[in-house]
């Protein structure tokens, strides 16, 4: 017991995880900014509000039941209900760690929030806001929580030996393949394939991607759950891998179109950070750099080909998260190095079994996420219309869903004061 440790709590560890939690929470509005830049101006606020809504809805659901379903002992597939309403989650040390249980619960909450928000990228510009919020509340409990339990809550994948540092299974593959299913169930935008639907502000996308990378140091660095050496390795790898992806992506852009693009660069940062997410604490720094470079290839190819299909997975969550996360999970099976991680080697260092456990996760997680989301959205669709009306879609979801505009002119706006007895009974332009 050192001076900094009292009652099983290490103040250094706690300090780092407290900061990491705030860093990861910031990633959700950063994601909103990134996504908002990629849509048309009339849908800016609605797109941003999907992420903001997740901050509210998912946090509440997490505290009520999802945390328990993910991290209570339960069975191999899903946790129990003993921690529902954060019962028994106090200031004592989390099992096996030197941080308080309550800190662990809020740190993990921040992961669930951004993962739910990620799915919005597949369905922006046409999904009804209310239906989306209902969907992510259910999704957090029935897709995210079990998948987090599998790898982090003592579930069946972890007990077999699958390694997942910061969310290849519950975050990246879960959001990517859920996005795939959501795009199919909700359907394409009405103008998809008919008009050029262009990003309205590439600066938002770049700034969002930059803030996401910044937050990712808490995401991967914090996933060490301690402030020691393993956090340092994950932190360094979170710098190296996205840099590798960024360089390769710029070269691919150059080869393909003759010009390195800004939207491409923003995408590359996400792809690289996603690729290293499952592997951050398991690889040597040079392996991380290689992973970043390799992770660019499948995602780049998919992003080039996807718009030529009829799949309107609008902001390419499947390519940027599903495929890159899958690449990172498999990469662990080859390049994990016990001399760095202290846990296990990969195939290249003499342990072929690790590749098997990684392949098992890669085979099962996408299927569960896809099917779970497909069924959940179909069920939500029975109760609530999933899409806004054609008129609302045409008008833009900022005005139709929120009664606000991102770039309001104010010309011709007439102040409505309740004292003046404004007659709301007069019909207004509702979509």
């Amino acid at each position, binding site marked *: 017991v050192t001076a900094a440790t009292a009652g099983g709590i290490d103040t250094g560890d706690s300090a780092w995880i407290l900061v990491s939690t705030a860093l990861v929470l910031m990633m959700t509005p950063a994601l909103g900014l990134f996504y908002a830049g990629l849509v048309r101006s009339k849908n800016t606020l609605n797109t941003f509000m999907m992420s903001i809504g997740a901050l509210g809805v998912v946090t509440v659901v997490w505290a009520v039941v999802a945390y328990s379903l993910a991290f209570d002992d339960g069975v191999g597939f899903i946790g129990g209900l003993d921690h529902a309403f954060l019962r028994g989650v106090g200031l004592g040390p989390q099992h096996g760690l030197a941080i308080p249980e309550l800190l662990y619960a809020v740190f993990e909450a921040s992961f669930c929030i951004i993962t739910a928000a990620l799915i919005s990228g597949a369905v922006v510009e046409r999904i009804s806001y209310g239906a989306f919020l209902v969907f992510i509340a259910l999704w957090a409990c029935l897709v995210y929580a079990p998948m987090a339990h599998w790898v982090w809550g003592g579930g069946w994948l972890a007990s077999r030996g699958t390694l997942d540092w910061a969310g290849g299974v519950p975050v990246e593959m879960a959001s990517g393949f859920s996005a795939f299913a959501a795009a199919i169930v909700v359907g394409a935008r009405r103008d998809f394939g008919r008009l050029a639907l262009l990003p309205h502000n590439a600066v938002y996308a770049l700034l969002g991607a930059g803030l996401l990378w910044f937050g990712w140091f808490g995401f991967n660095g914090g996933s060490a759950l301690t402030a020691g050496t393993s956090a340092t390795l994950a932190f360094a790898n979170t710098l190296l891998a996205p840099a590798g992806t960024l360089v390769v992506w710029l070269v691919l852009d150059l080869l393909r179109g003759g010009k390195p693009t800004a939207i491409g660069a923003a995408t590359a940062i996400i792809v690289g950070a996603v690729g290293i997410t499952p592997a951050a604490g398991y690889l040597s720094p040079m392996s991380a750099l290689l992973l970043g470079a390799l992770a660019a290839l499948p995602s780049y190819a998919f992003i080039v080909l996807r718009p030529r299909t009829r799949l309107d997975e609008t902001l390419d969550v499947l390519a940027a998260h599903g495929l890159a996360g899958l690449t990172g999970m498999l990469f662990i099976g080859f390049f994990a190095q016990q001399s760095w991680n202290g846990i296990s080697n990969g195939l290249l260092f003499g342990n072929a079994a690790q590749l098997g456990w990684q392949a098992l996760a890669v085979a099962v997680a996408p299927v569960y996420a896809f099917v779970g989301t497909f069924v959940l959205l179909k069920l939500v669709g029975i109760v609530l219309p999933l899409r806004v009306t054609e008129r609302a879609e045409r008008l833009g979801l900022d005005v139709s869903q929120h009664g606000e505009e991102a770039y309001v002119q104010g010309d*011709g706006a007439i*102040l409505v004061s309740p004292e003046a007895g404004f007659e709301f009974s007069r019909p*207004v332009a509702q979509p």
Partner: protein
Amino acid sequence: VKLVIGIVRPDKANDVLEALYRADVRGLSMSRVQGHGGELDRVETYRGTTVKMELSEKVRFEVAVSDHFVEPTVRAICDGARTGDVGDGKIFILPLERVVRIRTGEEDTAAVTPVEL
């Protein structure tokens, strides 16, 4: 020679462009304008401030055409811009006193006839 002015919804502007192209109408200008026709107001709320938005974003097309092209132009704008809801816009057709093509000095019908490349 007539000037056809079409004021349409911004989200139908691409459809109008496409319809005009199909009708072989070349040479036009478009601008973003704000206007108010018979459509109902939008009510928006920003914190405690509720406002009625009296003006809507519109796109204004201006196309100068020779007389026998007036009907195809009007039809193309109508086809491209119509949704059936209030707020689809208007078309104004004005006589033009004189048209000059700056590059060649050609006038009137010759000035609005597209150059064959």
